[in-house]
């Protein structure tokens, strides 16, 4: 296996950067936290934009970080096929920054939701979901106030037609009901691909479900996308 260094991009207000690094290192993937002003290291073979509250969620969650100079580099790396993952605030940044379609905005309940949710794997034929089966139900934690996925009907149709929905919120039996939708996301969408399958964002936290010592490890599969580069 070639040397792999995943850059975990830290902004002021990021708070899942160390979780992401620890989870990746547990899987044997070399990862380092990179301060956004330093830019991506030359040997970057993967990018994680972690969760948190970058720039205090000013204007809109992710709006400021999405327009920071390092995101120009992240977009370029993503366009070159470098695996790029945005989690939670990183997902908001990804959508604000045009890596992925749609937007994540205020939860339907207007409340912060911090709990474990069930997700149905919608497409197991991507680097982020290859460890799962189509239709498999996994459990990941969420922790967000602005996780409601919004997208217009035409773009949603295109996302579905192109099989770019990764995960949908569901109940324990795999039904994508309104009751199992923690934030009112359109079509229960929890995570999507960008224009290519090497770019993904999701609101749930795979890095918080990756260490056996602290609980379930269903999130490992998402992070394994960084193993095979």
């Amino acid at each position: 296996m070639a040397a792999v260094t995943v850059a975990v991009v830290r902004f002021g207000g990021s708070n899942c950067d160390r979780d992401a690094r620890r989870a990746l290192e547990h899987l044997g993937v070399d990862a380092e936290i990179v301060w956004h002003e330093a830019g991506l290291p030359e040997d970057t073979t993967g990018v994680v934009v972690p969760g948190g509250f970058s720039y205090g969620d000013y204007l809109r969650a992710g709006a400021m970080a999405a327009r920071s100079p390092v995101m120009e580099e992240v977009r370029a790396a993503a366009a070159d096929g470098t695996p790029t993952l945005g989690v939670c605030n990183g997902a908001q940044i990804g959508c604000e920054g045009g890596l992925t379609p749609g937007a994540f905005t205020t939860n339907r309940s207007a409340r912060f939701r911090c709990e474990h949710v069930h997700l149905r794997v919608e497409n197991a034929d991507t680097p982020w979901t290859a460890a799962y089966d189509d239709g498999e139900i996994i459990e990941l934690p969420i922790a967000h106030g602005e996780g409601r996925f919004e997208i217009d009907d035409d773009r949603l149709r295109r996302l579905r037609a192109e099989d770019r929905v990764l995960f949908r919120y569901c109940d324990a039996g795999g039904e994508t009901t309104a009751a199992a939708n923690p934030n009112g996301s359109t079509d229960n969408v929890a995570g999507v691909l960008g224009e290519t399958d090497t770019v993904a964002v999701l609101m749930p936290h795979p890095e918080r479900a990756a260490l056996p010592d602290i609980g379930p490890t269903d999130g490992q599969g998402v992070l394994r996308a960084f193993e095979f580069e």
Partner: protein
Amino acid sequence: MTAYTATVTVRLKRGVLDPEAETTRRALERLGFEIEDLRSADRFELDLEADDAAAAETRATEMAERLLANPTIHDYDVEVAEA
């Protein structure tokens, strides 16, 4: 160059749920006010120098497109006045 103030108003598109506005509406009702509906918007006042009002509007519009609004969920309008 003339000094202008461009006012950019950003609001959610029709049909996009606004849980904060709904919460605010309910709070007003708890205070005893009767209200049919409530919409919220963000307003940005930009002081800038430009050759004419049209140029000022063009720049403010670009700012709305690139940062102040998110075209996925927002509509916006721009008004320009001499400062």
